[in-house]
């Protein structure tokens, strides 16, 4: 599953943030929950990916302070991020379709 995870990390994160702004811990937790534990990140790789997407201007982080809470960093998808998300989704869809056709791979 590791190879798939590597190539698809960006897709996963962008897709999650497309649903709404999240801070780092939430991002990690939701990926783990939704993939039923198949996908998980180490601390560094999670933030590495977040920072990388931020540098590519696909997401944007900002510090938010809520009363009675420590300040947290929330990440939000950018317009460019949505564009990349769309094209990645399409590409992966094609690949999965091809895998299904050629190699008999079924969606789990």
């Amino acid at each position, binding site marked *: 599953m590791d*190879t798939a995870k590597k190539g698809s990390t960006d897709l996963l994160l962008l897709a999650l943030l497309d649903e709404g702004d999240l*801070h*780092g*811990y939430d991002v*990690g*937790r939701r990926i783990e929950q939704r993939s039923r534990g198949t996908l998980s990140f*180490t*601390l*560094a*790789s999670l*933030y*590495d990916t977040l*920072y*990388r997407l*931020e*540098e*590519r201007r696909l997401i944007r*982080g*900002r*510090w938010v302070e809520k009363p*009675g*809470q*420590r*300040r*947290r*960093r929330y990440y939000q998808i950018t317009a460019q991020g949505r564009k990349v998300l769309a094209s990645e989704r399409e590409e992966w869809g094609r690949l999965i379709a091809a*895998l299904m056709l*050629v*190699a008999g791979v079924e969606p789990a």
Partner: protein
Amino acid sequence: MNDEAKPAPEKSQPAPDWRTAVEHRAAEVGVDLPTPTIDELAQHLEDLYTAALAEGVPPEAAHARATAALAESSFATLRRHAARDPRRAHARLTALHAATSRRRSFTLLNALRLAVRQLRQHPRFALVTMLVLGLGTGAATTVFTIVDSVVLRPLPYKAPDRLVNLWDTNSEKGVAHDPISPVNFMDYRALPVFADAAAWWRPAINLVDPGLDPVRVNTVETSANLFTVLGVRPQLGTGFPPSPTLHVADEKLAVISDRLWRTRYGADPKVLGRKLSLSGESFTVVGVMPPKLHYPDDVDVWERLEWDLAQHSRHAHFMEGVARLAPGATIAQAQAACDALASRLADQFADSNRAWGVRLVPILDELLGYYRPALVVLFGAVGLLLVMGVLNVASLLLTRTLSRQREIGVRVAVGATPRQLVTQLFAESIVLSVGGALAGLLVAAALLPLVVAFSPVTIPRLEEASLDWRALGVAVAVMAASTLLFGLVPALLLLRRQVTAELKSGDRGSTRVARRVYSLLVSSEVAVACTLLVGSALLVRTVRAMTATPTGVAAEEVLTAPVQVARGESTDRESFLASWRVVADTHNRVLDEVRRRPGVIAAGASNFLPLQVGWRDPFVVEGEPVRANPDEGPQAQLHSASDGWFEAMGARLVQGRFFTTADDRDQPGVVVVNETFARRYLAARPVLSQKLRMFVSGIGPLGRNLKDTRRSRDEPHQGDLFAVVGVVADVRNAPLGQPVEPAIYFPARQFPFAEMNVAVRAVSPGIALTALRAAVHEVAPNVPIGDAKTWGERFRAETGEPRLLMSTLIFFGFLASLLAAIGVYGIFSWSVALRTRELAIRLTLGAQPVSVGRLVVGQTAALVAVGLLIGLVLVRIADATLSRVLYQVSPHDLESAGAASLVLLAAALVACLAPARRAMRLDPVIGLRAE
């Protein structure tokens, strides 16, 4: 503290401080994280911890869970993010911090440390690259050092490039390198194109001092100006005093070499003024030359010339000469002046000078002879090797850089600036170059003494070779420059392409170009290896042809050693002839004594060994008219051989008989001729009843014809008759590669020479030597034995030069093939890896693994074939140089080309075996997913 967190447990455990934990962890792995990142990570851990508590996990386990998340994280990647983008909010907060960190993390030193780590992760790549660099630089340094010390380093004379040797040529006799006649020399010396010229000849000399063993020393008797012409001075004493003439008759002076001075006289400064007995005559030492000076080749004693060159003969060619060109005169001008003079002399002295000319040869060319073309071949070989090393390093680095396409893409994506990236690649190249240079140094240091020690022949000046640091520097520089170039250029090309495209890695454009470049590199490598291998195959055949050349003797184990008997002073003709009779008798007694020793089977002596060229002189077959000038008639080589000589050397008798003790000086003159003589001059007649009329009375002070019937030198010579009593199968009397000449053998008893090569056939060479030593000691205690060797050893030494060249070329040839194979392996591993997807699709669509393998191998074969073709063209281009070192083999020899091609094809096949197997065993599913 998080308000939403459950109240702290009763066990008064302090709430974990996640900030400190993150800081500790960062410090542990040596990463400076900016404060905001620490905050963010601490918050994450806290969330993790509180979530665990919320699930009902006990505080210790919750704490452990968060700590585990921290521990499994490698922070290295995070640092780059943190340090990079000043627009990032938290980075802005720690701008100062980040700046320091950046400065620190991208110094060259850090880059070097990182590079070493990188290469350790790819040990095979690093080792192969360093090995290639090391072999290339090491071999190049070794050969350059040798060529430099043998060819390029100036000779120890003043302005050595202004010095030329003079050799006689004769267009009619096809002679291009003969000694010059003394009278002609004096004419040439007077030409204004020469500042001065010196001449010498080589008497063989026994050196006898009281209290010391007699030895044979290499001696020249030279005109007094030799050292002035060369521009060298003795280290001790004054040398020959200046004199208006080239010779001084009344006083016998000698200069000795540093080597003789140290080995024989213990470097005693009192050697000046000492009397030396040189072949019975007393000379005063007036100088010791500086170390390593033995001009013209290996001389230890220089005697001053005692007789007038101008009063000798234009017919006699036995002098050697060296001239210094006049200031401003070029060698071409000097040659033209000599040619003009030669044609004037030919007109004026037609009987002696017709067709004779003089050839000027720069002394370095003269000194090197065979080695010059050989070293050029070698130099070319090693140059090619260096090129190959560069090509290989280039291909290795190209492969590696391209395989790092993604890594570089990621690095750029995560914020490496081009400067940082270049620094990094630069550092990797430096580490590779340094490793390669060290390996090269080791290779050169190991190789050079081996070459010097195992050289089968003495190459002039080779022993002076010591590791040349400049050469090493140049080789390392070439290699390092190529390492840098090929390490950086592809990386920079990659950088220019946009990063996102590389990350998707679906694009094949750059790799297609790279593959074309790479194929070109591999083909060139194969071409170079092919050239070297064809060269070595040709040399192997040359050596084989040389060794197989019939010599006419069967004397592998026969000991041969020169023995020279000194002839006493003579005042008149009677005492002169008497002294020659003593010489002849002494040799005979030595041989008799040798034959009496146990274990000796046969013994004999001759003034020439096989492969040596005898004296040439005219003869007339009896019954044919005698010309007014016999010199214009046919000539044959004259040799003197004792009874037992042919038997000892294993020569074959064709007709009649060899010499016996009965062929003495008071008996009728007899000769043995060789088959070539019999065929050419005595064909159609009964050979054994023929008589030859000979005009030779002696060979200067070297030998004397005791059957010469003339009463005095001035009496006109009608010739003396010698009966042909035998025909010997041709004993080679010309160097390898030249035809055997007609030869006449005199019995040594009738035509004695002072110096004879004694041949002893015994049950073993050791026994032969013991017998010869004892016999000489018994008969003539003052006579030294010269360099004693078996004939087999001497013959092998004749082929030593091409054999040395051959073994070197074989060495380089196989090194080159190895490099080519590495190249082939490199390109195919890479191309199979790159084409994994394509090959997988082929397999998926039903291609047989075998056909995929065939596809890969077929492409190798095509590359190798192109390389071979280019290589064969290169051999064609090197034709002229090659043919100078070949013997009885054409540079276009098909067999050699075929052998070289086979070796290379086999090497290439082995090299692409592993990648081909990988391609055939490819799992289509994994293959499709790869990238």
